[in-house]
């Protein structure tokens, strides 16, 4: 449905509902997916779905109802349910309200070629990647996902917002005699995807030979490449830089806002228009660029209309989906680049390890920012400032803030990586503090390795 038509439809629907203090959030996604492994496409799918969320506020209480049915009867039922739910709730100490009038639209990251890519075109890309392996015996697996997402918000308070955007995610893993290697890219235009570079990076990891087992324990000097940094910085954002956990006193930032929490080299922003731009939040408010860490000092966090009012701060426009229990979170984080090439970072570390990616990261203790996980897709020994032998993967347990306080260098090329709640665009980072707590067991007899 064209955007204007969507907004008009929603506005009409809202009027017909005759409900006060009501907001309608319309979300539509058309997704194409091709997954492949061992030279086979094992999933090829096309999905289209749309949701309507009705948010009713009654004396500061919020009731939500979601539906995929769009006939008049279903919409009326959803509104009635949301209203009745709100009326049933206990009176809140801090009443909620809908954000005040705002009108806006954004289609600045919307690519028709990406939106309309056909299954056979995605299959052709997979074929090209497989052909591009050349003589390499590594097995390729991965996923290519294309999306067109539409979002509209209208409310009785006068909000009228629409946004349409596209997104591409490419994940490529090569498995070979040396282990695995990975290439990852995300953007909003399929023609921007750097296929050759992604393939080369994946193959490089798969073909580098794994050397003898090395016992490494305790604190290490490290270079984390951008994929690994995405996890570290993303978890920092998740743990500390959302207003809800701050208000609930569950955030490490409660005692450290305004304090030096990292090396003065480090500046981290939330930039909603970076990489995969998202201009409005789920309340239809404009998402604002927010400095989270300025030269090592924690100086900001992200809010939605409710938490901003509670904290007496500006609404940065980071409302999550209404049914999310997490509250506002940074979803487009950017680590400001430094001056150093990857080679210079390795030189700076001199003796230590290089880590390409992290796997299955989880929080062990939130207030100390302690996380654990495994290294993946290439862990190498650095000796004399050069990458030498490939190492097995390691389990780490790291306090993110300790890692960031001990930064010794920042790379100059930023690239997008996945974090736990969005994209993190980051350069590689070198630090003197990264704690290894164990090595992965040698693989059992593997058929393919």
């Amino acid at each position, binding site marked *: 449905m064209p955007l204007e038509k969507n907004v008009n439809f929603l506005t009409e629907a809202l009027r017909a509902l005759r409900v006060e203090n009501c907001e309608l959030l319309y979300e539509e996604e058309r*997704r194409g997916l091709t*997954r492949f*492994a*061992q*030279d086979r*496409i094992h*999933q*090829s*799918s*096309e*999905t*289209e*779905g*749309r*949701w309507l969320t009705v948010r009713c506020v009654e004396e500061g*209480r919020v009731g939500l109802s*979601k*539906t995929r*049915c769009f006939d008049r009867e279903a919409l009326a039922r959803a509104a009635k349910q949301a209203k009745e739910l*709100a009326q*049933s*709730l*206990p009176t809140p*100490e*801090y009443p909620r309200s809908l954000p005040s009038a705002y009108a806006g639209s954004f289609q600045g990251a919307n690519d028709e070629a990406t939106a309309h890519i056909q*299954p*056979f075109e995605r*299959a052709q890309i997979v074929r090209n990647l497989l052909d591009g392996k050349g003589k390499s015996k590594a097995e390729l*697996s*991965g*996923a290519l996902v294309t999306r067109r997402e539409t979002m509209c918000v209208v409310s009785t308070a006068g909000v009228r917002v629409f946004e349409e955007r596209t997104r591409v995610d490419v*994940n490529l893993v090569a*498995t070979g005699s040396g282990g*695995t290697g*990975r290439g990852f890219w995300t953007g909003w235009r399929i023609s921007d995807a750097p296929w050759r570079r992604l393939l080369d990076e994946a193959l490089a990891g798969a073909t580098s030979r794994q050397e003898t087992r090395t016992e490494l324990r305790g604190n290490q000097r490290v270079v984390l490449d951008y994929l690994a940094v995405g996890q570290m910085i993303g978890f920092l954002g998740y743990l500390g830089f959302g207003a809800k956990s701050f208000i*609930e*006193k569950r955030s*490490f930032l*409660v*005692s450290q806002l305004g304090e030096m929490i990292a090396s003065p080299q480090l500046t981290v922003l939330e930039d909603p228009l970076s990489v995969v731009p998202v201009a409005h939040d789920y309340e239809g408010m404009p998402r604002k660029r927010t400095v989270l860490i300025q030269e090592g000092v924690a100086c900001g966090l992200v809010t939605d209309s409710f938490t901003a009012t509670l904290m007496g701060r500006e609404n940065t426009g980071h409302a999550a989906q209404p*049914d999310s*229990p997490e509250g506002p979170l940074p979803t487009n984080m950017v680590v400001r680049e430094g001056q150093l090439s990857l080679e210079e970072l390795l030189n700076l570390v001199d003796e230590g390890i290089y880590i390409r990616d992290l*796997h*299955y990261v989880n*929080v*062990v203790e*939130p207030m100390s920012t*302690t996380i654990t996980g*495994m290294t993946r897709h290439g862990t190498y020994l650095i000796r004399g400032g050069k990458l030498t032998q490939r190492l097995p*993967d390691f*389990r780490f*347990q790291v306090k993110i803030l300790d890692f960031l306080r001990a930064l010794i260098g920042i790379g100059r090329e930023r690239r997008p990586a996945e974090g736990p709640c969005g994209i993190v665009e980051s350069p590689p980072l070198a630090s003197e503090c990264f704690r290894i707590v*164990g*090595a*992965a*067991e040698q*693989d*059992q*007899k593997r*058929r393919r390795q």
Partner: protein
Amino acid sequence: MSSEMLKDLAVRILDKIPRRKELYADVRIVWRRQERLKLTNFQPDVCLTEEDLGVGIRVYLAGHWGFAATSSLRSDSIDRAISKALASAGSSAYISIQGVPFQIPPQVVADYQTPVEIDPLSKSLEDKLGLLEAACRAMKSEKSVLLAEASLDIFKESKAFASTIGSVITQTTVHCGAGIAAYAVDGPSVQVRSYPANFGGDYHAAGYEFIEALDLVGHAPRVASEAAELLRAPVCPCGPTTVILESSQLALQIHESIGHAVELDRILGHEASFAGTSFIAPEMIGNFEYASPIVNVTADATSVGGLGTFCFDDEGVAAKAEPIVKEGRLVGVLSSCSTAPLIGRESSGAMRADGWQHFPLVRMTNINLEAGNKSLQELIEETDKGLWLETNRSWSIDDKRLHFQFATELAREINKGKLGKLYRNPVYFGTTPQFWRSCDAICGKEEWRIWGVPNCGKGEPMQVARVGHGCAPARFRNVQVGGVQ
């Protein structure tokens, strides 16, 4: 929407798919109704009702799968979805990529419904909110508890499946879950205790009677006082020791280090690009010593109350109870009609999709550790020195499901057969076969219960499955334990 209506619709959509001799197709219509209520400090947090409806169409053509799905049941949307599913299957063949096998399941016509005593959707909002509010109040009576959370989740799903081999199946499942959590705060220290488990509590395939039986309000004061006690407790000591895992923690241990490891698509490398593979290779099935001889693990899609309980999977294969580990030996895996033939087996009936919008994947059903023969009291009394570890707080495992680390909310010292001192921030880690081989005692049927995991993530983009794990507390020797400062 009634099961009959869904069934009629599924058959009508199936009839629209152009028949070709070599084509197999199935249609899956899924209707879901969910109610989620969460109070934080008696304040409404997320309070939501949700109704989901859509159709997924899967076709198998000349060795290739295609899938399309839509939330619109209008005729033009369905026609478009059918065309897209066929185009998706054709696209793989078009570029001559090697195909995948498919073992056509037997034809079946059936209906199934979760047995329910009290329909959870018929219970009034006032009753549900009253329960959560009372639980929050009971936790807040402890001074250091700054945050008291109480939540409940009701899930009802009706699904109709129709396939070109003449199978027509309708299934209605009802899941209920609830839990409480108390956060005690002292300056920069925060400790959490939850009941009956963390991350939303416990879930069963059952009606509202399950939530009532949890007695959230009755447990709230204990939960709150334990959170406060943890603030003052010393950090868990480090080193190898004997541990007894409480059953909700053991359920997650089974989930991560057995359940995912025995998914055949992972074993075959299909999930290599995201969640990872498995340390298991096909040739290890039947002769690999996974665990000590007292360990028996069954994938049982028929367990009463399990979130992984159904009558037929999303390919129309009948639910089974299949041994996975028998007297310590790996004997089975979780599989589908496309993966099982690759190792010369039949599908274990574990192909499951998240809603209508996803292609099904090999997923866990209820992966149960069979009961042993000890009482919990005996287990503790027979342990000279060790730790009792209770309620999961964090989990992580490598991409081959081999090297894991778990954190729990609390540890209690076991000294000369008695529970003693409380410790905070315990973690334990190990490698899957070594850990399971060190299991030397499992509690009996009195302690055995099935736990619900409603948020198992897999696939790319992520699909969420609802799975179950039955188990009783068990003892493991020589486990590496540590504490986070």
